[in-house]
């Protein structure tokens, strides 16, 4: 198993420090296998983005993980042998959030070690990804920067061109600034950035928002064809139905249903999932 999220509970403190905290996630649990494309479905405000950002330790200042674990099948380089297996001393010591099977609890990691795993093992394609490229630098410079952060010896230029080529973008795009790319190209460039360090898991938060139908389909095909596992976070049921092998449905901060996409959409056991599916059907969607 690549990722095992167990009872993840997150709350946001009220602004100004007074007032009751708002619970955004309550005991959310789901698993992701290596190489699988899974979907996380939920309407706006259901806690999807909170879950995605909690995984990579990028919650807002007001957000805090109350309890739970997120076991990722990877170990920070500082705690591992050259072959990537965790050191015996690390496993034996409870102070390290590392299990004997080589999984690390992302939520309990100190920030400097979590930074080592971000992008190298778990990459986040943020919401509004079209703005995720700094207008001051070329696409290539930004991908090279991320690659070098995790592998100082890597041929970052080649990795950048390869990542763009994998998503059907010309290698010459490395020399272009974001404003010289179309919206779809920018979206794919951001995805290429996420791919550049060959992470085991890509968490894509609403990656199809704002894209036209053709570009959206192209991006979904790209996501489905990746070797890495993908957690596709979206309110777009059509996109998830097309792409995800397994589906988890979030409602009001709780995972109300999980299972193979066919089962979840074919015979939903939760009324909220059924309502979402029915709303999609009314809009012309179909599940066979």
């Amino acid at each position: 198993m690549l990722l095992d999220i167990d009872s993840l509970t997150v709350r946001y403190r009220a602004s100004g420090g007074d007032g009751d905290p708002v619970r955004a996630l309550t005991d959310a649990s789901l698993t992701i296998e290596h190489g699988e494309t899974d979907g996380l479905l939920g309407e706006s405000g259901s806690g999807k983005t909170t879950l995605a950002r909690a995984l990579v330790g990028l919650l807002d200042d007001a957000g805090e993980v109350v309890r739970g674990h997120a076991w990722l099948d990877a170990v920070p380089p500082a705690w591992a042998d050259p072959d990537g297996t965790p050191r015996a001393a690390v496993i034996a010591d409870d102070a390290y959030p590392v299990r004997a099977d080589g999984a690390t609890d992302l939520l309990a990691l100190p920030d400097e070690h979590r930074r080592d795993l971000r992008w190298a093992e778990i990459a986040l394609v943020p919401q509004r990804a079209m703005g995720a490229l700094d207008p001051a630098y070329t696409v290539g410079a930004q991908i090279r920067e991320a690659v070098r952060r995790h592998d100082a010896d890597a041929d970052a230029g080649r990795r950048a061109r390869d990542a763009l080529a994998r998503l059907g973008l010309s290698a010459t795009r490395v020399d272009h600034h974001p404003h010289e790319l179309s919206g779809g190209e920018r979206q794919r460039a951001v995805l290429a950035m996420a791919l550049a360090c060959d992470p085991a898991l890509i968490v894509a938060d609403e990656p199809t928002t704002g894209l036209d139908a053709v570009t959206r389909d192209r991006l979904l095909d790209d996501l489905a064809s990746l070797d890495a596992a993908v957690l596709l976070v979206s309110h777009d049921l059509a996109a998830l139905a097309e792409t995800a092998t397994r589906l988890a449905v979030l409602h009001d901060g709780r995972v109300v249903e999980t299972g193979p996409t066919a089962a979840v959409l074919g015979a939903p056991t939760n009324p909220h999932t059924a309502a979402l599916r029915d709303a999609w059907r009314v809009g012309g969607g179909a599940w066979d």
Partner: protein
Amino acid sequence: MTGRAADCDASTASSRTHRALRRFLTNPLALVGTAVLGVVTCCALAPGVVAPHDPEWVAYVGTSDGRLTLAQSRSLPHPPAFGDPFFAPLGTTASGHGVLTELVYGARTALLVGLAAALLSSLVGVPLGLCSGYYGGWVDGVIQRVVDVLYGVPFLPFVIVLVAIRGASTTTIVLAIAATAWLNNCVVVRGTTLSIVRRTYVDAARAAGLPAHRIVARHVLPDVLPVAAVLLVQDAATAILAHATLAYLGLADVTTASWGVLLQQAQATGHVFDAPWWLLPPGLAIASLVAAFYYVGHAVEDVTDTD
């Protein structure tokens, strides 16, 4: 970085610089400001070449040790003269020194005070504003409370106390101006940083695992620099005005040639109303230099605006 990537980054940076330079050079006010700054800089760097006389030159007797006659003394301050009885195109002060010469030698003080105070306040205010805006939390709280307290310190009494402790030197005046000017830098840069750190590309840089100092240096600072540059030139202008004011109030070093001291001498000797050739040049010089800094500041803001 591979050679090709390095070449590419260098060429895009070069084209950006060319574009910025072209925009700057097509802005008339920027050209006026730059011209004024150029003239003042020439005066500051080589006053001996630009000024018509040495600073020791005195009307009628020049640089010799000769004494003025009673009639000659009574003719001072002398209006502009172009060779008869002496050459002083902007006239003289009551002590017989050429106003143009004093003006040229005072340029160095004006520029030094402006740039030193502005650089000092930027060096303190910009990093603190960046830290305050980027890290937030207790770092922000501590820095902003210090700023709040220092905002309450009145400028003039503060300078008077500082001058009483350290003496009325140019360095004291620069320190006094910088000690208050950095506050504005810090507050404005903090606000700009707060808006930048919410941008998606900063979020993406965090998600890529980049350390905070690298995110600040690569993705936040470039967007803060235009604001910081504008603040720098505004601070320089404010510092020049503040120094002139302090000199006029007698709180500056009167042994150093400066435009404010020139004004103060006119006032102290009672020639404010009868020697316009003495009063107007330093006043206009201060106003021109301050305006030049503002013009250049606005042009820099325009050139570096990425939106």
